């Protein structure tokens, strides 16, 4: 397969465009008997005697074909999509009525294996079997659905898409799991009640075989009434065969809907009877106790005491990897941009006489600073995505969901919401990406809104510094209290949102399929992780870079006369002027000086930048010189709080904990839930932060 591409589109079924071009428009003169490409309604003779490859006339014609992958969750549908498109499918269902689906371009070769025409323009030499021609079609990876008739928005999308008279795909590829045939066939039973071109891709055959289950694809295809092809998308085998069958089916006749099982009036009962027949006839041996291995593992991993302990150990490991292991990589990348890259650019600008100019400020502080900030997140996100892929692919994530279900149900969230919330204490950015483990848009949205209240390690550095400055030997206790408050904020905000905006979100009881354990494959893990990383970088690049440049710009524009652009002190810049303008708002919380507010605005960009912002504002050369910096900060707090330094410092730490974590978190939130909900989150956090800070200061100053 050649170079392929995937585009990520958000669609309603009704918005999916009709293929732009199709075969009818093209001359098929070179083909045996095929004067026009047979689409629906051509004569059976023409259809039967015209080979598919003869009709796939050129790239434009071929790319007009749309193939949709449908199937139950966990059957390997997205893996098949990855294998066919060579791209990365990462499923995500978005809030509201739209569901994000992935669309990829499938480039396949028409050669002697897929074409046996006597004369055609496929480009291959039919006698020697050499040579090939490239074709392409669009593949849409639909959300996992057990059935068409349901109350889930994911499954609704599949039904709308399949039934839409204008946007329906040319072919459905129903993906079914050989190890769990009965489970996968309900959707097939429903789809086969419709007149749709369809083929069935049978996955997980290797696993089924290991457990003594042998599926007879020929017998199964006789019952289902459409071709059944065995594929192994994890190891990319069987794809040529699938290609041939797909091409045959696209240009072949529309199969008749399946016959109903006689004497059963109820639709659901009838489908189960049909499934039972299909499983009986399509399975050579059923395998007894094929879950033995997974059952043995579950005996340990789901054990009453040991299970939760192992789960905590796994979470600890995830936390360690996303913090301790990622930190030196992050520091390394930051260093590269802060030191050699910045120095090289400064040197180059000096050579052309632009040193000290606004160009240097824009390039070094804005562009390079922004790129450094963005790329320093890359190893962290890559590690997070690899861990997610491993947890999902191995089957452990489903077990973790069972173990944490009861605890998380307090917030109305399923057990698997535990993972993103734990990761949030390391860094909010990968935590928001980790909400993809949740199955419904509402659960994801609620979790995305709660994550910013988890105290990430960037906030920890500022807490430690403030703790040392203000609380001396009680510094540790002060930092611990912030962690406690963080957990309380997550729980309380969750409860409030549940009782207000999400009143209708019923408490869903745990019903979860436990897939058999399997060894994750390197290719799948890397491919899924890379796809997710690329998506993050694409979204975050503009937002992070843009914000950093805007902050630099605001700090460079003077509000007083006689000073040039980018030559001004921060105090006299638009940025300083804004900080001074909004600082009275914070005087009720005891920290209403422009220097403190300025640090908070910088904290909006990145929390760890707050200390260096203070150092810059107070002209302290070394930000690590806590004693000198501490004196400046203490006197500022003394002034702004009217002598109530401790309550003002606590109020500041509370505000610092609760307001927007950083611009990278916003970028991640935007990617997961869109601008509207990201904006809602920002406003909600600012209100919570301000109200809490004012309450802490006003109550605190009565005592201290």
């Amino acid at each position, binding site marked *: 397969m050649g170079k392929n591409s995937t585009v990520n589109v958000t669609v309603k079924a009704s918005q999916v465009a009709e293929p732009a071009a199709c075969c009818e428009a093209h001359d098929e003169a070179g083909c045996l008997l095929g004067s026009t490409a047979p689409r629906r309604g051509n004569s059976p003779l023409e259809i039967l005697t015209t080979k598919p490859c003869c009709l796939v006339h050129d790239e434009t014609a071929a790319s007009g074909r749309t193939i949709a992958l449908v199937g139950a969750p966990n059957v390997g549908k997205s893996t098949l999509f990855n294998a066919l498109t060579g791209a990365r499918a990462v499923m995500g269902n978005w809030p509201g009525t739209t569901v994000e689906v992935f669309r990829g371009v499938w480039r396949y070769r028409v050669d002697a294996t897929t074409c046996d025409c006597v004369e055609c323009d496929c480009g291959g030499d039919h006698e020697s079997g050499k040579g090939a021609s490239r074709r392409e079609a669009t593949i849409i990876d639909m959300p996992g659905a057990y059935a068409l008739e349901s109350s889930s928005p994911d499954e609704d999308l599949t039904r709308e898409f399949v039934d839409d008279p204008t946007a329906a795909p040319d072919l459905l590829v129903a993906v079914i799991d050989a190890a769990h045939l009965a489970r996968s066939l309900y959707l097939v039973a429903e789809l086969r009640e419709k007149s749709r071109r369809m083929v069935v891709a049978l996955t997980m055959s290797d696993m089924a075989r290991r457990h003594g289950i042998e599926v007879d694809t020929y017998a199964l295809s006789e019952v289902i009434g459409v071709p059944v092809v065995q594929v192994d998308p994890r190891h990319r085998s069987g794809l040529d065969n699938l290609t041939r069958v797909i091409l045959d089916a696209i240009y072949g006749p529309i199969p008749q809907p399946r016959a109903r099982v006689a004497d059963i009036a109820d639709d659901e009962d009838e489908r189960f009877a049909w499934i039972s027949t299909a499983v009986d006839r399509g399975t050579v041996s059923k395998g007894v106790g094929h*879950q033995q291995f997974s059952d043995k593992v579950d005996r340990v991993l789901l054990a009453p005491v040991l299970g939760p302990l192992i789960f905590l150990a796994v979470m600890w490991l995830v936390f360690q990897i996303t913090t301790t292991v990622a930190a030196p990589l992050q520091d390394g990348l930051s260093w590269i941009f802060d030191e050699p890259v910045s120095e090289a650019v400064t040197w180059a600008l000096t050579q052309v006489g632009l040193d000290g100019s606004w160009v240097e400020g824009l390039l070094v502080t804005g562009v390079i600073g922004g790129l450094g900030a963005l790329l320093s997140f890359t190893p962290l996100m890559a590690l997070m995505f690899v861990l997610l892929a491993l947890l999902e692919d191995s089957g452990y994530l489903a077990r973790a969901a069972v173990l944490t279900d009861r605890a998380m149900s307090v917030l109305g969230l399923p057990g698997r919401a535990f993972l993103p919330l734990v990761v949030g204490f390391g860094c909010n950015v990968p935590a928001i990406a980790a909400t993809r483990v949740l199955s419904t848009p509402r659960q994801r949205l609620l979790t995305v809104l709660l994550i910013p209240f988890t105290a990430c390690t960037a906030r920890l550095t500022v807490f430690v510094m403030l703790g040392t400055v203000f609380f001396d030997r009680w510094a540790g206790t002060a930092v611990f209290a912030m962690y406690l408050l963080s957990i309380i904020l997550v729980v309380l905000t969750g409860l409030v949102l549940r009782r207000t905006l999400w009143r209708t979100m019923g408490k*869903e009881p745990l*019903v979860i399929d436990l897939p058999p354990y399997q060894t994750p494959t390197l290719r799948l893990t890397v491919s899924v992780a890379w796809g997710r990383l690329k998506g993050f970088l694409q979204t975050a690049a503009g937002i992070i870079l843009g914000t950093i440049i805007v902050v630099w710009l605001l700090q460079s524009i003077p509000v007083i006369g006689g000073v040039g652009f980018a030559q001004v002190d921060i105090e006299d810049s638009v940025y300083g002027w804004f900080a001074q303008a909004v600082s009275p708002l914070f005087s009720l919380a005891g920290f209403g000086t422009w220097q403190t507010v300025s640090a908070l605005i910088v904290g909006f960009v990145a929390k760890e930048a707050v200390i260096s912002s203070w150092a810059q504002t107070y002209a302290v050369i070394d930000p690590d010189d806590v004693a000198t910096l501490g004196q400046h900060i203490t006197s500022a707090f003394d002034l702004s709080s009217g002598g109530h330094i401790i309550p003002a410092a606590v109020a500041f730490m509370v505000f610092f904990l609760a307001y927007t974590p950083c611009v990278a978190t916003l970028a991640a939130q935007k990617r997961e839930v869109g601008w509207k909900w990201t904006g809602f989150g920002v406003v909600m956090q600012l209100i919570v932060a301000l109200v809490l800070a004012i309450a802490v200061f006003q109550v605190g100053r009565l005592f201290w």
Partner: protein
Amino acid sequence: MNVAVTVKLDQAPVDQPLSIVGTSTDPVVAQRLSRLGWRPGGQVRVVRKTSGGARVLDLNDSRVAISGDLAKSLCVEAA
């Protein structure tokens, strides 16, 4: 002749073949269970109880975990 006694699933013994009688849960959950193979007359086995009261079931040779609360609204009898 033995008359099978209907019990709630949370009371059912572990590792015994059971026959599914029905559910008293809300229709959406009942439909989800049905798609996973929970059909009156079908076979089910409680594979294990987990911490937090959840149950792992053997339904159609697949493993499905359900919460302890949900198990209280599902009825089975000895197969």
